[in-house]
């Protein structure tokens, strides 16, 4: 089959590789009908995530048709149309029982690696380095899905691929980030980063009843989409406005009740702080550029909540622990427990509460994956979300 392989920093290519086979009884093989590139794939693309190996198949947002099931899979049949959560969960460990699926204790066969780096192992995930198990990803023609009786969600044919594809990651991720904010109508929510996850965080905050949601980015087309489709009430372009001052202004001095960081480790910004972060990252002294999360903590109201969805990799420098502690800010974060949100969000899509297809900006062929990565990284042609099909 053909698959998008990571061949080195800023090098991906579509290679001919062996077809996946059933390795465990609870596996299924899925023929991928639609997949997409995630902002977090860019961290791999740009070489910021350790433990990548040449030849790793990328992609953790995908959906498709079941073509083979292992003996242990009773709830799926060949021909089923499914969306697959990016994190792999066993459904039986304590973490899974508590619905903390992305902390599953059984799905990371290379768990000793994150144990060294992060203290404990994370769950397994598709196409996301060897820290998350070394599982081939879904930017391919076929993919092996472990614990297929736990993860994949059957979706009705009445919905298009573009409407359900994002249930695999970014819609639940954005939703979880908004849920962290314990939203009431009185609460003002600031969303840092208006990429696809940011758009869904904004839309979810509105769905959960926030009256005022502020989007922050540097690309006018992304801010426009946030206002027109996701439902942001205000926008800040940080290259033109001072974020702290504008947020204080918009909230009459209080600061947002909750801030959602949808940026992560490759944040951009202005001035010295950005130059400092960037220099350290280039010199490989630091993995993370923490502009967005710093801004979020400083902006947040006392005893407010900072919800971190952006991906971070390592041990951060110049983290504002003083402001965080003294003003009693709560941080809530995590890789999304996708399994927890898929069904309720599918119901919301079917009810028409949200149509996630609004983030799709481009359709491309799987064979053009290399070009798609480059375009997505450079934010060319007002790119938002690229759907790949083979």
């Amino acid at each position, binding site marked *: 089959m053909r*698959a998008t*392989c990571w061949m080195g920093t800023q090098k991906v290519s579509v290679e001919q*590789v*062996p*077809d*996946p*086979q059933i*390795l*465990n*009884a*609870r596996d299924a093989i899925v023929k991928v009908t639609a997949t997409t590139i995630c902002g977090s794939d860019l961290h791999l693309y740009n070489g910021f995530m350790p433990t990548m*190996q*040449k*030849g*790793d*198949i990328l992609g953790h947002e995908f959906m498709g048709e079941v073509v083979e099931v292992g003996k*242990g899979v009773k709830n799926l049949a060949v021909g089923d149309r499914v969306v697959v959560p990016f994190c792999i969960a*066993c459904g*039986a*460990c*304590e973490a899974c*029982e508590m619905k903390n699926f992305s902390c599953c*204790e*059984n*799905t990371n*066969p*290379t*768990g*000793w690696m994150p144990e060294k780096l992060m203290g404990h192992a994370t769950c*397994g995930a598709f*196409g996301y380095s*060897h820290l998350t*198990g*070394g*599982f*081939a*990803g879904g930017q391919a023609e076929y993919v*092996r899905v*472990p*614990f297929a009786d736990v993860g994949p969600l059957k979706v009705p044919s009445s919905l298009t691929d573009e409407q359900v594809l994002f249930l695999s990651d970014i819609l639940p991720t954005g939703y979880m980030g908004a849920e962290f904010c314990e939203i009431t109508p009185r609460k003002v929510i600031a969303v840092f980063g208006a990429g696809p996850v940011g758009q869904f965080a904004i839309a979810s905050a509105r769905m959960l009843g926030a009256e005022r949601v502020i989007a922050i980015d540097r690309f006018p087309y992304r801010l426009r989409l946030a206002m027109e489709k996701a439902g942001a009430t205000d926008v800040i372009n940080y290259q033109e406005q001072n974020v702290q001052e504008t947020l204080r202004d918009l909230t009459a001095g209080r600061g947002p009740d909750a801030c959602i960081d949808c940026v992560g480790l490759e944040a951009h910004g202005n001035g010295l702080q950005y130059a400092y972060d960037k220099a350290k990252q280039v010199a490989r002294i630091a993995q993370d550029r923490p502009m967005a999360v710093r801004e979020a903590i400083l902006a947040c109201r006392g005893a407010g909540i900072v919800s971190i969805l952006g991906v971070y990799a390592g041990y951060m420098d110049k983290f504002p622990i003083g402001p965080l502690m003294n003003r009693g800010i709560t941080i809530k974060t995590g890789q999304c427990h996708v399994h927890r949100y898929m069904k309720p969000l599918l119901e919301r899509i079917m009810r028409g509460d949200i149509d996630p297809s609004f983030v799709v900006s481009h359709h491309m062929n799987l064979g053009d994956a290399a070009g798609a990565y480059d375009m997505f990284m450079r934010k060319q042609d007002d790119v938002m979300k690229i759907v790949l099909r083979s």
Partner: protein
Amino acid sequence: MDSLSALRNINAGRDVPDGFVLSRAVGWTSVGMGIAELLVPRAVSSIAGLEPTTGASLGVRTKGFGDLALGLGILLRPRRPMPMWARVATDAIGLGLLAWAVRGDKSHRARGIASLVASVSTLALDAYATQKVTAAQETAASPVMFSVTINKPPAEVYAFFRRLENLPLFMDYLESVEQKGTRSHWIAKMPVGGTVSWDAELVTDLPGERLAWQTVAGSTFAHRGNVTFASRPGGTGTEVRVEMEVELPGVDGSATLAKLLTKPQIKGDLRRLKQVLETGEVLFSDASSHRGPHPAQPSTEGTSFARARATESRQAHRKGVVR
């Protein structure tokens, strides 16, 4: 955790004065020698009874660099046997080189022999200190102890473990274990190929609580295992704690070496035990279905590796009858 292990954990952090003082002395001496050799190599070679040629100076400087590095290594980790063993090995090599140099140079025979004697005593002293540090380390930290929490009641986890035939399901270096009463016959795969086998005896069997075994008297190596099963705080679930010791009887330091070698293995074993009990089998990824590093991409070898393991598991399972 039984009180013995708790006590051991507390004691593990305490200084072991004997070995500690000795290793620091070795470290500082090593640093001192290193500095002298680096700064005044000619004087050092002349004291050692060598013709102070440019070649000898270069050799002495190189040794100085090594001595300095080893000394710092020992001072940074005075309780660890590894840097000390490196010191002893370097002493032995240095002694060999010195003997060779002295033999070829007849003009300073007396000094040469004196420095040889000094080197031999250094080696002896370093070896003695290393011995002490190693022994202290062994009383402080062996055996290997690891633990895992399994989301099943203790009775079930115990029952699974008690059927020793099940062990190869998650201890992937074992080929088979066969039980005959309280005795069992273990066959393990060697990393270099071939197998090794031994007989063990169950010494403690407290249903739902504890299992302990050890190799029978007269085995080529000693292997002891102790596994406790305790209810996790406040509910269902089992805290499994494993202590294991492997050593070659009579060979000092073999337990420490074995500990270093078996540590990652036992951690992996427990990870797999949890997988087998909670999910039914050991999970493979595209990377983990290969012996060495492999990219996250399907491969025919990976598939056959995983399937072979699955077949082995089924066979072991059949022998074990129930889970």
